[in-house]
Structures are given as C-alpha cells and as structure tokens.
C-alpha cells in the first residue's frame, strides 16, 4: 500500500487521528459488577462511533477494542465499519464468567467526513446478553475505537 501512496511526486504526512470510548449509560444489572446489554436475534448494536474528517488522499487505519463475554456461546461477534463498509467480523464471543479481549482492525482509503464504527451483532435466532465487567456500577464499559490516517503532500 505504501507503493501506491508514496512516489516521486509526493511524500506521506500525518492526516488525522482520534479515538472514542464506550460509556454504557445504563445501570449495571445482575451481580459480579457486570453490565448487561440484551441484543435481539439477528440484530446489531452500535458500541462506539468515531467521526473524523479525512484528507482527499487519506489512507486510514482503525482498530476496535472490546473486553466482554456472552451469555451463551456462538451468538455475538464484533464488526468494524469504515466509511460505511463492513470491513471485518470477529469470531464468536465466548460464554465465560469473565471478560476476554477482542480486536478488529483494518485499513481503508477514507476522504471527507467519515465514520469508523464498532458494533456487536447477535447471529443467533434468539436474544442473547452481552456482558461487560467493571469495578463498580459507575465503571465505563471496556470498548473503544481508534483511528489514524496518513495523506499525500
């Protein structure tokens, strides 16, 4: 990809960068200081959205980070969207009584005002709970998205 951007006519420079953290505003439910999101069957839930304005010649890299678990195995996956396109889908979130970490990441050429979005999707035929674990009822849910881009100058 560097061969496409950098050539005798130009050089690379920093474009934009940013991040967004997921703050679950609903109260923690259940025990074990756990927050629960009920995701309906065949439904996506937006966790974090990052809006940036990219240069016309920008190549962006975005990564979504989540630490969570699921009520049941083989239900939830995480999805990374960049510029209105689904770029990556993770494997299934496990059903365990603690959090596990997931990262979804990719490159995409983005220009103008675009969004990078991290979503959770329940692929099952029934609803399933998504669990985030925190220190107390005011803890932020551990999910975030970061994005940075380079441009031709």
């Amino acid at each position, binding site marked *: *990809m560097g061969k*496409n*951007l950098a050539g005798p006519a130009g050089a690379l420079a920093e474009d934009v960068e940013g991040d967004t953290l997921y703050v679950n505003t609903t109260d923690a439910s259940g025990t074990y200081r756990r927050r629960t999101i009920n995701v309906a069957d*065949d439904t996506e839930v937006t966790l974090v959205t990052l809006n940036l304005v990219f240069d016309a*010649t920008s*190549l962006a890299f975005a990564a979504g980070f989540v630490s969570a*678990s*699921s*009520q*049941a*195995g*083989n239900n939830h*996956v995480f*999805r990374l*969207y960049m*510029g*209105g*396109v*689904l*770029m*990556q*889908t*993770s*494997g*299934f979130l*496990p*059903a*365990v*009584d603690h959090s*596990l970490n997931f990262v979804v990441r*990719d*490159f*995409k*050429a*983005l*220009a103008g005002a*675009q*969004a990078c*979005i991290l979503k959770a*999707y329940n*692929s*099952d035929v029934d609803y399933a709970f998504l*669990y985030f674990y925190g220190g107390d009822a005011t803890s932020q849910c551990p999910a975030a998205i970061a994005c940075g881009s380079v441009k031709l100058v």
Partner: protein
Amino acid sequence: MRLKVPVTGKVLEYDPVASQVDGIGVVGDPDDPVKTININLGNISWRLVTIDLENDLAEIEVKPSENISVLKDGGDPDNPNDWIYRASTKKERQSFLDYAKNLIESHTVDELYTMTKAKRLVKPAKAVEDYKKKPPNVAAREQFLAQG
C-alpha cells in the same frame, strides 16, 4: 480461504482513486452500510478483500476460530457456566472452513438473499460505471491480508 458472499446496504459512490489504494473504493451509507448478508458462517472470522459492484458480491478472507465455545453434555445453553471455552483442533478448524464454504456454495445468490431476508444492494448507476472503468487494485490489500 476466500468466499464470495452477497452484499446488502446502500452504496453512495465508488471512488476510483481510493480503489487503487485500498482495493475496495466503495463508500457506503453510514445509515445503511454496505455489508455481507447476515448469514451465520459458524466458527470463523473474516476480513473484506474487495467488493464486486457488478455482481453485488463481497470477496472475504475467512479464518477458522482458534478458540471455541462448546456446551457441556446436558448443559443449559442460556447458562454461561455450562459452556467450555477451549482451543479448537486442527480437524475442527478444517470443518469450520468446510461448513462456511458449503453453506455459501451450495446456494444460489437468489437463495441466499431469500434465506437471510436481506435487501438487494442499492447502488447508483454511476458507481457501477466508475467501477467498470477502473476496477479496484486488489493487490493493494494482499500484503495486509497476508499478515493475518
């Protein structure tokens, strides 16, 4: 393993310049993003390789899950304590790939849209025209995808 899966959503435009950089070039509607149909491919993860705007197909690079959740014998699927999370075996990983491949390739595109009740991709004629004139440089993504 590569698969071609039907896509849904709404294309805003096809950017021929961007397509030479990222091998995709498609800009989707954030309110109705371009994505593969919601078909459960099982214990795999995948990355987008490119989007074929003539045939409304996403080519995806599929990998089998290295760790899986298995329900204990007689366990309650709604109880997290009745699931075991363990590494998958080589044989299981191959079966995951075989399952995904067979699921997609044993149905026509029309059947896949019907099965998932997904809408057909909405795309402006200009996007398709621009795509045909300057198809995406997929080689641009290969180096990144090869890293896994």
